[in-house]
């Protein structure tokens, strides 16, 4: 119980720190922070499926795209007042994503491992191309969204807080989920799906539910992301690097841990945008080296390494 209180306090402290940060740093760094919170939110949403259930999706950007296009098309067709449109778009973006996930859940969740990963990669690719080539979606032309930022706030600060709220919400949701009945069921599925099923875990239902939840959260972020861009095309929301970064951030921090995706996102965004910001030519190269080094030296992520150290330290303490 003591550990849990400490963890909640730590999370609260980090949240408070992130909440006051924009007041003290340069606009560029607020933008980096915004990117970090976006990445953290996406990684957390991905991690609900990939980390807890062990189903690695390689095409989660599909849901970012669905969320964004839902918000965009809603605006184009209904022309609601900006703030109302933003709220409705965000909400509906999550819902449409969830509905789509529910439709494809039955077939794709029959696949496991690499085949599931690639099936979703395929889904995202198909959606991306359809959104670009079917005129009704206007993906090639691009969609414009109204400016919703109140005059009193700088836009980067406004979206910083939007993404902060999303990331914090998803984090809290993950924390709750992990300790729930569903969470334990997912852990069982991750470790051994057939055994879990044999022991009476309703694997099918749990998997579908998790998939839909993860898609809904990703879609919500996608809708907000679309508003933060203001103008977007297919290419700016159906992005392979979104899919990859979600995985990478979760893995870097530590798969299966709560804070892992956040820590991974923080580290990678910091390294690529601040440390290597001036070296545009080599920054992907260095990212690659980092990834390889990570897998070779710390395969269970940073939190995993920390856990191993602590275990060793404890062993040494006791004679």
């Amino acid at each position, binding site marked *: 119980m003591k550990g849990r209180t400490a963890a909640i306090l730590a999370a609260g402290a980090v949240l408070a720190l992130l909440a006051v940060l924009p007041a003290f740093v340069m606009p560029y760094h607020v933008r980096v922070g915004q990117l970090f919170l976006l990445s953290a939110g996406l990684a957390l949403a991905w991690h609900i499926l990939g980390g807890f259930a062990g189903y690695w999706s390689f095409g989660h950007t599909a849901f970012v795209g669905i969320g964004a296009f839902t918000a965009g098309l809603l605006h184009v067709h209904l022309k609601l007042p900006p703030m109302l449109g933003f709220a409705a778009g965000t909400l509906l973006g999550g819902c449409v994503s969830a509905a789509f996930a529910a439709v494809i859940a039955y*077939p794709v969740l029959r696949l496991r491992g*690499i*085949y599931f990963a690639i099936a979703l*990669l395929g889904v995202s690719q198909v959606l991306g191309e359809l959104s670009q080539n079917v005129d009704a979606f206007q993906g090639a032309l691009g969609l414009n969204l109204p400016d919703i930022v109140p005059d009193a706030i700088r836009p980067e600060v406004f979206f910083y807080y939007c993404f902060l709220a999303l990331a914090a919400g998803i984090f809290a949701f993950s924390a709750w989920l992990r300790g729930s009945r569903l969470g334990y069921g997912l852990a069982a599925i991750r470790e051994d799906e057939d055994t879990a099923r044999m022991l009476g875990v309703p694997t099918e239902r749990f998997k579908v539910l998790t998939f839909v939840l993860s898609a809904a959260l990703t879609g919500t972020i996608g809708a907000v992301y679309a508003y933060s861009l203001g103008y977007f095309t297919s290419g700016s929301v159906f992005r392979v690097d979104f899919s990859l970064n979600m995985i990478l951030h979760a*893995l870097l921090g530590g798969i299966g841990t709560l804070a892992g995706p956040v820590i991974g996102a923080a580290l990678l965004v910091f390294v690529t945008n601040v440390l290597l910001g001036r070296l545009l030519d080599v920054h992907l190269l260095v990212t690659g*080296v*980092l990834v390889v080094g990570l*897998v070779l030296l710390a395969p269970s992520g940073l939190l995993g390494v920390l856990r191993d150290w602590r275990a060793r330290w404890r062993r040494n303490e006791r004679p």
Partner: protein
Amino acid sequence: MTLVLQTLLDGLVLGGVFSLAAAGFSLIFGVMNVVNLTHGIFVLIGAYLAWSAQHFLGVDPLLAIPGVMAVLFAAGYAYQRTIIQSAVDRSSLLASLLVTFGVALVLRNLLVLAFGPDFKSITPSYAFTNLKLGALTLDIVRISALAASLGLIALLAFVLYRTDWGRVIRATAQQDFAAGLCGVNVRHVYGLTFGVASAFAGAAGAVIGIVLPFAPPDEGHWTMKAFAVVVLGGVGSPAGALLGGLLLGLINTFTAQFIGPAFPNAMMFLVLVLMLLVRPHGLLGSAFGGSR
């Protein structure tokens, strides 16, 4: 009618190249259960080597293939023994995905630094000659590309099924532990497999170079194509790669011709997803580890 036949022909030529490009990927996936995301890079390195051979030495790209294969065999062997082995030891799919993704990122950027980001293409001396067969046009380049692809796949099948190397590779694929008990040096075989697969990727690159333009960012595209071919045809066997590749080539050209030039990729993934649902082992799913 002529249009259908011409599309069929183009599809087969493209499919032959796809098959060859996927054969090595399929081998690695089948034997080591490693999804090698660097595969596309090896294909491109082959293409760049062939381009350099023609550009600097004036060697015909198809004649440069043995040299390209030798270089990439050595590179693949070394790469497996130094970096990939750690992923194999952990026998974790995800470790292998990430390591190879990281290496692909590094190599792609090195290629950009070395050759620049622009598209390159190899133009052999016979580039503009073509044959007329009734109403169909066959240019020599495409015919020789198809012939080279089929010949090289036959060579790979020969290596796998008729030589000692092939025998130990197949034994290791079936059960590495048992193979080890029989005196096979499993690590060496893994290195060998990777070397052979990389060599064929390089050869595919040289062939691709004369048919299509190429640039460093293409590598992901080639890796994905290889994966699609493997899913369609089945893991681990050259025959599976051949069948999957030809099918993919046909899907590509027919979609582009009759549905719209923007849709081949969407169609490819649609077929891929359907295939995964109906027959996840691929059309010729084999007894190799990866297909189970």
